[in-house]
C-alpha cells in the first residue's frame, strides 16, 4: 500500500518560497501568474494492507512529525 501525503501551508502563513517562485516566473516572462504556494509531497510505502489501518497510521505520522500543524495542513490519500 502506498500513501500520498500533501502538506501545504495554512492560509495566512507567509510562503517565502512561493512568493519567490511567482516573482521569478514573472521575470522569466510568464504573465498571468496570480499566486504560487509551495508545499511538500511525500510518498510512503507501507507494509500494512488494511486501508483503514494504513490511513490511521499515516495520519498519525502527519500529526507527530510530517506536518507542523501550527502552520501546515495535510491530506492523506491511499493508492494501490
Amino acid at each position, binding site marked *: 500500500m502506498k500513501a500520498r501525503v500533501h502538506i501545504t501551508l495554512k492560509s495566512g502563513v507567509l510562503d517565502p518560497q512561493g512568493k*519567490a*517562485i511567482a*516573482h*521569478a516566473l514573472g*521575470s522569466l516572462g510568464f504573465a498571468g501568474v496570480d499566486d504560487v504556494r509551495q508545499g511538500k509531497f511525500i510518498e510512503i510505502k507501507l507494509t500494512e494492507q488494511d486501508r483503514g489501518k494504513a490511513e490511521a497510521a499515516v495520519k498519525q505520522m502527519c500529526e507527530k512529525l510530517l506536518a507542523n500543524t501550527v502552520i501546515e495542513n495535510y491530506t492523506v490519500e491511499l493508492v494501490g
Partner: protein
Amino acid sequence: MTTTYPNDLMGLSREEYDRVLAIMGREPSHTELGIFSVMWSEHCSYKSSKKWLKTLPTTGPRVICGPGENAGVVDIGEGQAVIFKMESHNHPSYIEPYQGAATGVGGILRDVFTMGARPIANLNALRFGDPSHPKTRHLVAGVVAGIGGYGNCVGVPTVGGETNFHASYNGNCLVNAMTVGIARADRIFYSAAAGPGNPVVYVGAKTGRDGIHGATMASAEFNEDAEEKRPTVQVGDPFTEKLLIEACLELMETDAIVAIQDMGAAGLTSSSVEMAGKGNLGIELNLDLVPMREEAMSAYEIMLSESQERMLMVLKPDRQELAQRIFDKYELDCVTIGTLTTTGRLVLKRNGKVEADMPVQPISEQAPQYDRPHMATPRKPQIDAKDVKAVDAATALTKLMGCPDLASRRWIWEQYDYLVRGHTVQRPGGDAAVVRLPDSQKGLALVVDCTPRYCVADPEMGGMQAVVETWRNITAVGGLPIAITDNMNFGNPERPEIMGQFVGCIDGMRRACEALDYPVVSGNVSLYNETNGQAILPAPVIGGVGLIADIDRTASIGFKAAGEDIIVIGETLGHLGASLYLREIAGSEDGAPPAIDLAAERHNGDLVRRLITEGKVTACHDLSDGGLLVGLAEMALAGNLGAMLSLPNMLVPMHAFLFGEDQGRYIVTTTDGAHLLQTIRGEGIAAMKVGTTGGPALTGLPGAPISLASLRQAHERWLPQFMSAADAA
C-alpha cells in the same frame, strides 16, 4: 590472430584494449573491462599528465607525505600536521550545478579526513562564462548554493576562494574545491592494505546506480549532445557525510584501522584496486554483501557506482566489533565485504558467480602513459603603455572596481558559513583567510589563486605567477608559506597547443616552487575542458597553505587609522600587457603578462613578513589584478577610510603607473613612514611613499576626489544585481 574488438570499448583505445588482452591472457568480462576502463581513464591514471607532474618539487623538511596519497601532509610543529588537497568537479557542475558542486565538496572532504584529519576549512576556486551568456547566472546560483549547502551542513567553514568570468568558460565552468584538515603528526592514516586475511570493511551510505562512469565522463570533451549523455547525477547527502566524519575520526582514535581509503571517482573499483595494489596484495570481495539501495544491481554497476559518502577500510580482525559499535552509534552501515589475500588478484563474486578475476598490480602499474606532443605557446608582444588608451583615474578605477573579475564577492561568501568552529580570524575578503588552530596561538593562512589570462598569454609565466600569488597572499597576512596543492584545469591534451600550455604551466610552477621552497604535496588534473573544440583559458589553480606562529601578529588589508603613511614595496614599472586595465578599459586581451623575478619576490616577501611579525606595519595588501590604485581602493574600502595620495615622480605614463600589474609588490601602512622607508631601502628593496590615510575619499589624483561611497557602490553592486534575476531559481 586478429583481435575482434567489442563494439563498446568504454572509452579505451584499441591499443589500450590490446594491453588489457595481454594482461588478462583472455577476453575480459564486462565487469573486468569496466574496471580497466575507469582505472585507465585520464581522471584516474593521469596518463597524459604524469610525466610532467613528476617534475614538480614535492619534498622538503616539513613534508610528511607528498603526492600519491589521498592528500598531502605537512608538519606544522608541536606534533601537529596539516593535511590538504584540491579537487575539481567541473563536468558534474556544468550538468547539475547544485549537486555537482555539493558532491565536489563532499569528495574533497573525504580525501582529507580519510587520512585522519579533522577538516577545519574549505576553499573553492570557480570560473564561469561570460556574464551575458544565458547559462552563466544559473550556474553561479547553483554552484554557490551547492558549495554552501554541503559545507554549511557538515560544519566546516568555507573561508576563502576566488571567482572569475570569461567567455572561454561558457560551455565548461570550473569548480575546484579544497579542504584543509589538522591531524596528529604521528596518527596519519594511509591507504596501503596490509595483512592477508584481514577484513575489508565498507562503511557509510548505501550504493546506488549513481554516476556510473563518472571518471570516464570527467575525461571526455563535451559536445552538442552532452545533454543526452547525462548519466545519473550523484546527489550529495551532507548529513550522512557529517556522521561519516565523526564516526571515522572516532574509530581513528583506536588502533582498529590498518588502511583506509575514500570511495571517490570510480568508487569501489579504485578504492579496492589502489589499497590492494599499494600493499602488494590481492583482494576478494563478495559483492552481495555491499549495502545497496537499489534492486538487482550487477557486479559492473556496483563496482563502477559513484554513490557518495562511502569509505573502504582494512581493519584488524579482532576490531570489527569495535568498529561496528561506533558506526551503529552514528547509524551508518559497516559491513565486512571481503578479505585481503596473497594471490595478488582482484576477485569479485556476485550471486555465487565470479564476475572478475584479474591481477591487481598491472591495472595500475601497466596503465598507459603518454608523452603527448606539445607545442610551446608563441610569445606575445610586449605592450608599450604609450600605445594604450589613457582614461582619467576616477573613471578607470570606478569601472575596474565594478567589473566582473574585481567586483565584491560578498554575494557568494555570505552564503557560506565561514565562522562555524569559532576559529576564523580573517574572514573572506582579505588576501588570505586566517584560521586559528584550536587551543593554540598558532594559525594557518589559506588561499587559492590563479590568473588564467596570464596563463593563456604565457603558460610558463602564468604557472609561475599562480604559485607566487598564493605565496604573496599568505605573506601579506603575515604567514609563512609552507606548501601547495594544485588543480590543473586544461583543454584537450591530445592537441599539441593545449599540451604545450600544460607543460609550460608546470614548468613555471616548478621554478616558482623551487625558488620559494614551497613544495607541491597534492593535486588534481582535469583535462578535456572543451566544448565543440573551444578550450578554456588554462587554469592551474594553486591552493596555498601558510603557517602563522602567533595569530596576534598578523596583518589585514583595511586602513586602520587616519594620518598613517602609505608605502608601496617593490618596483612599479607600469606593465599593462594582459592586464585588467587593458581588457576592461582598452578592450584588448593582448600582450605578454608581467614578468616575475623570483629572487625579488622572495626578498620582498620575506621582508614584508618580518615587518608584519615585528609589528612595524598596520595594514598590508599585495598588489595584483588592477594594480596600485585598485589595491589602494580595496584597502580604503576595507577600512572605511580614504587617503590623500601624493604620487612621486613617475617615469611611466600615469595610467600605467596606477594600473600596471607589475609583480612582487605590496602596499603597507605605518605610523612612521620615514623610518620604514629607510628600513626597506636598507635591504636594497625599492619603496616609495604614495600618500597618507584619511578622509572619506581618495584625493590627490588629477580630477575630483573619488568618494569611497561611490567606489563602494560600484564594487558591491555588480554581483547582487547580476544575480538578482536568478534569486528564485
